[in-house]
């Protein structure tokens, strides 16, 4: 059994906390502890409460505190719960993303906002099953946004995020483990680099996080139907420049871009990707699959009908390729 995404992330943070004796984690109730086989990680036990500190229900403290300490050279990770992703939004917008620029490069916030994200699960409803908020952060100047789809990328991207001198938003969706095994030792997945998960020539499919599982299934089914899809996982959502090089190269080859997103349709992160391709490549056919512009209903009958499934991806791709 391979390491879970949560274990991989804690392993990354543990390694960095050993390397950087000041690195500090502020969190609320999501204990920084995990077990894998007979191994356990417990950051509070290992590094003490000052460096792994739970708090009152106060996301503005978790993020604002991390910002403040990072300003004086104490790197910090702010871990906030999934239903509160947008509570500290102003702090990331007006402060985290702007300080370096406003001070002409003199000051900065080398911190990581570790944001738990929500799947589109039934029985949760309105405030507890709302995906796609990573694009709220991807739009803010001065922030980097990474979003792993598997434990391997999660560990490598978290280490990159911690070592980065600019504020990084690390988005963790509840995604079952897949992909390569996670080495015990530290390694880096560079911020800014997309990965081509499957090579293909008929159509380009872009998606990340939980959607990568639906897309992987769809790509298989399309293959059986004789359609060769190229599947790209951006992994980084901001800055997007390098990522777009990979996507544009693919779309120039296939002429078709299908995106699949758990976020709501309007302004989901693939919206920006589509607009950039539309500006850069003439004559492309586009389709954007996403959750409707509605809050997530609790009843499974409703939400399962609304979220994007492998079947939706297959249907859309076939339509685009066969016309």
């Amino acid at each position, binding site marked *: 059994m391979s390491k879970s995404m949560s274990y991989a992330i804690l392993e990354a943070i543990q390694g960095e906390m050993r390397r950087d004796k000041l690195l500090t984690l502020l969190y*609320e*109730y999501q*204990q920084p502890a995990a077990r894998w086989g007979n191994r356990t990680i417990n950051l509070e036990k290992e590094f003490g409460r000052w460096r792994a500190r*739970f*708090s*009152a*229900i*106060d*996301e*503005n*403290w978790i993020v604002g505190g991390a910002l403040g300490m990072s300003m004086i050279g104490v790197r910090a990770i702010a871990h906030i719960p999934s*239903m*509160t992703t947008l*509570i500290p939004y102003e702090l990331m917008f007006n402060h985290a993303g702007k300080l370096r620029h406003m001070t002409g490069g003199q000051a900065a916030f080398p911190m990581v906002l570790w944001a738990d994200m929500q799947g589109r699960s*039934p*029985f*949760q*409803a*309105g*405030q*507890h099953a709302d995906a796609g908020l990573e694009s709220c952060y991807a739009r803010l100047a001065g922030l980097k946004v990474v979003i792993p789809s598997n434990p391997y990328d999660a560990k490598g991207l978290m280490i990159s995020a911690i070592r980065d001198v600019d504020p990084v938003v690390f988005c963790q969706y509840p995604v079952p483990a897949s992909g390569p095994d996670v080495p015990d030792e530290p390694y880096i997945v560079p911020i800014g680099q997309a990965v081509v998960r499957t090579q293909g020539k008929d159509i380009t499919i872009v998606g990340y996080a939980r959607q990568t599982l639906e897309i992987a299934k769809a790509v298989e089914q399309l293959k059986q139907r004789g359609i060769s899809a190229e599947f790209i996982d951006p992994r980084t959502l901001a800055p997007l420049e390098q990522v777009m090089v990979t996507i544009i190269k693919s779309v120039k080859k296939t002429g078709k871009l299908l995106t699949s997103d758990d976020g709501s*349709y309007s302004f989901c992160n693939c919206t920006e990707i589509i607009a950039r391709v539309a500006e850069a490549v003439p004559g492309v056919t586009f389709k*954007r*699959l*996403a959750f*409707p*512009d*509605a*809050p997530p*209903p*609790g*009843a*499974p*009958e*409703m*939400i*399962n*009908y*609304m979220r*994007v499934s492998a079947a*939706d991806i297959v*249907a*859309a791709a076939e*339509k685009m390729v066969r016309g």
Partner: protein
Amino acid sequence: MNGQGRDNENKAALSIGAQDPKGIPRRTFIQGLSAIGIGSIFFSTGLAKEAKAQSVSTYIDSLSTKQLRTMYTEMLKIRLWETKIKDLALKGGFRGVAHLYVGEEAIAVGVCSALRRDDYIASTHRGHGHLIAKGGDLNLMLAEITHKATGYCKGYGGSLHITDMGLGILGMNGIVGASHLFGAGAAYGIKVKGADQVVVSFGGDGSIQGSFFTSAANSAAAYKLPWISIIENNQFQIWVRCSDVYGVRDLARRADGYGIEGRVVDGNDVLAVYDAAKYAVEKARAGGGPTVIECKTYRWYDHYGFRGSKIGRDGAFGLGYRSDRELREWMAKDPIPRFRRFLVNEKVLTEELADEIVAEVTKAVEDAAAFAKAQPVPKPEDGLSNVFAEGAVPLHKN
């Protein structure tokens, strides 16, 4: 467990109330109670001078027999209805989730007994008790928790968002602290209307931090709004203990910094809660402004869901963040048998009458479960409606 079991247990639990004095005519008895600390405020903070003046037992004394019996019935409703949810969920195949309120019933009932039907409450993620105490329909609530098309919210919201505008229930809310802010906003609206209603915002010990409470409290104080904030201090925020994250022991003290009177009461004593709430409600109606009341209590189950609990057994044991011993101590302070014992001693109820009530409530809960089970599920495409008042949003799939 089923009503029988609960009934028996209630009887069994009576021994807990044994220290209560026997057969004293009612009025004096209540005076006595306040003296020995039942039905009495622990203390008031800051502006509480007038508060102290208001003798504790004034309000309790004026409770009618009917009111007292209703209070007992309401507490039972909450206990048995939620226990039923727990048992159904543990059986498996339950179409929903829940944050159980069991153990804290005296707060919801003590507070809501001091309210008029047209007063408002704003509730939390742990709000089933608040809603039942304000008159919420057991059938529609259970249908909603199981996301049925005929539930309070047509299955859209489930446990976290049950609302009944007709009963002045501004809704449960999954975001901690929001109840305070929307409650204070509603209280402002009452002033604009020139009405004499009041608003109660319920919140846990975790709800006083974050941005909601401070905005509510400052405006309620500055504008003297008819707002009452009930802080249900069950000592935990999931597993986090208040003492580790606050610089004050009594959370009611937070009120003082805003110029609001704060009070601390025994949250397992329905009369003490009622008395403090009634005082605050009367004050608010008279234009006297807000009050914050901290009720010390304990939750019997896990923060969320049913870990550590069993069908037919009360309480969740073996949870890492608290000792079973601590739980047992608090279960011994069970507000329901404590109140029943009091009512029997007060001749407000006989054991027989009390048992009848238990039987009635048990039946009502069984009926609610049957009702919910029989209800239809929502249609898939309904998820696209009710985003705006009119029309449906596009699915965008083809």
